[in-house]
């Protein structure tokens, strides 16, 4: 069996499962945010539920329209806060100790290897980087999960992506996942598990692995997953007392497709509007002027991402007329970035450093684009109107490319500085 099949079999209390099987899986964690949870809570009560299945395993994070952008958003966050209090949920996060859900859930040790996790947010697939099965669902599925502690799942086929070779300068996990989506398309992994492996992955730190699994959904994937190794186990040390199980795919596991790519051939990637599959190597981008650079989001808001951006922006200035907005992924990331001098470096370069929020990524607030404006962003989607006006444009790239582009006022890599 593959790692995904093993995790689902265990959660379903079965010896084995095969792709296409319907199973009822016990849930390790159920998650929702300030946009999706209000419907979840309405449905939870509508179902006649009065108590969540396990207060330790229901996580609510207010991160999308926060800091509350208007009265309605404030009411939504209040709904979550009141529900957390009523149900005795220890894991409700807003500003203090909070941040973007897919950054803080792993950082706080709430997602662990072998877990089955559903979240009312499509980027829940991020936690696959820890060797968990994690997938996005809608609000009502999350409500049912909160009430019952289980959900039904169809066991997905698995596609395997093996990365070999050396990484070129400035090529990161973001570039590898954009390259992958460019190759297979935005529905290339529809309903399937995407398993990432190979020597390049083995040498990659957790931040890059989270970024890769985060964007599995951008290929239509049900989950992204990477088998835990020493890097994973070291990263997990001291984060949780909860027991976990490490799984790996068998040597004879069956895959619906296997891709093997030599990363020596892969240059930094940029996804053009309006689909994440519209990728080009940096050398093929041409002259694309930008109005805004956004560095952050659940894709690239980790400390490692900010270090890369600050390394490039240090001693340089953001181009006149360009807005460079940096969003540390969590209060903890913000604090560490402050201690390391990253925040100061970014401010001196002319960036704005904001509170953690999903705001700009989805065109909610704190960085919306006007008609005809163009942004380069380390976020994960570039759909029509994603960051604001339907006639604005978003180009997706890594923190290194976003930082260099902010300095040059056009899409460019650090080597052009």
């Amino acid at each position: 069996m593959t790692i995904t099949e093993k995790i689902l079999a265990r959660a379903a209390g079965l010896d084995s499962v095969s792709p296409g099987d319907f199973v009822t899986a016990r849930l390790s964690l159920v998650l929702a945010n300030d946009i999706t949870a209000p419907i979840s809570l309405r449905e939870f009560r509508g179902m006649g539920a009065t108590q969540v299945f396990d207060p330790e395993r229901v996580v609510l994070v207010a991160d999308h329209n926060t800091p509350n952008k208007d009265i309605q958003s404030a009411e939504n966050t209040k709904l979550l806060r009141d529900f957390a209090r009523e149900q005795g949920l220890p894991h409700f996060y807003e500003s203090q100790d909070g941040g973007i859900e897919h950054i803080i859930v792993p950082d706080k040790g709430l997602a662990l290897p072998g877990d089955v996790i559903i979240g009312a947010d499509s980027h829940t697939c991020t936690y696959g980087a820890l060797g968990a099965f994690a997938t996005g669902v809608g609000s009502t599925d999350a409500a049912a999960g909160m009430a019952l502690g289980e959900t039904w799942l169809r066991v997905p086929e698995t596609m395997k992506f093996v990365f070999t070779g050396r990484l070129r300068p400035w090529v990161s996990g973001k570039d590898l996942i954009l390259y992958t989506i460019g190759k297979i398309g935005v529905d290339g992994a529809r309903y399937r598990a995407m398993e990432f492996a190979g020597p390049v992955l083995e040498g990659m730190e957790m931040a890059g692995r989270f970024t890769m699994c985060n964007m599995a959904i951008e290929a239509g994937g049900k989950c992204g997953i990477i088998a835990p190794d020493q890097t994973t186990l070291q990263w997990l040390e001291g984060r949780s007392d909860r027991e976990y199980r490490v799984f790996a795919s068998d040597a004879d596991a069956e895959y619906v497709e296997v891709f093997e790519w030599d990363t020596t051939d892969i240059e930094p990637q940029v996804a053009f509007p309006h689909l994440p599959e519209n990728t080009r190597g940096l050398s093929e981008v041409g002259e694309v002027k930008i109005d805004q650079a956004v560095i952050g989001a659940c894709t690239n808001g980790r400390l490692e991402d900010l270090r890369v951006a600050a390394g490039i922006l240090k001693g340089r200035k953001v181009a006149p007329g360009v807005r460079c907005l940096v969003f540390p992924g969590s209060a903890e990331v913000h604090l560490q970035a402050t201690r390391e001098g990253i925040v100061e470096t970014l401010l001196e370069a002319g960036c704005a450093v904001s509170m953690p929020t999903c705001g700009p990524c989805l065109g909610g607030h704190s960085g919306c684009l006007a008609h005809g404006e163009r942004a380069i962003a380390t976020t994960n989607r570039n759909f029509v109107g994603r960051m604001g006006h339907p006639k604005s444009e978003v180009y997706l790239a890594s923190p290194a490319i976003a930082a260099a582009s902010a300095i040059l006022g056009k899409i460019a890599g650090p080597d052009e500085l």
Partner: protein
Amino acid sequence: MPIHGHAHKYGDHVDTDVIIPARYLASSDADELAAHCMEDIDADFVEKVEPGDVIVAGRNFGCGSSREHAPLAIKTAGIGAVIAESFARIFYRNALNIGLPIIESEEAAQGIQSGDEVEVDLESGVIHNLTRGQDYHFPPLVGPAAELVEAGGLRQLVSRRLAGRG
């Protein structure tokens, strides 16, 4: 009762951001959401739709975010069913959960053109294209999807289970 109306046709990869833009997601009120349904790719959508109309689309309809606001907006705008070559999985599941009829049929999605008058019979698994005199057949749902439709949605299904626990 069959679903009967006109078709509104779109292309591949219609994402949830255009079905209901995030700038409206502070609300979870179905009527407010429906008022902005599809506005970023079809500004007149809400005015054009009559109850019973269907959306017809290409591949990967509903890709992107998990927002249940998307099928909720479509359903509340008056759409009787969504017919597409394929659906993104979270959208598909959300539609079943909230009782928005959803049909995967390459033949129908390609055969039906914008403005065609169609009738959908969910029970017998057939879409009649009254404008072109064509019929498209689709297989019945199986497994949990069939249970969801039978119960009328996930709320109803869970409700029964919780009541059964006493």
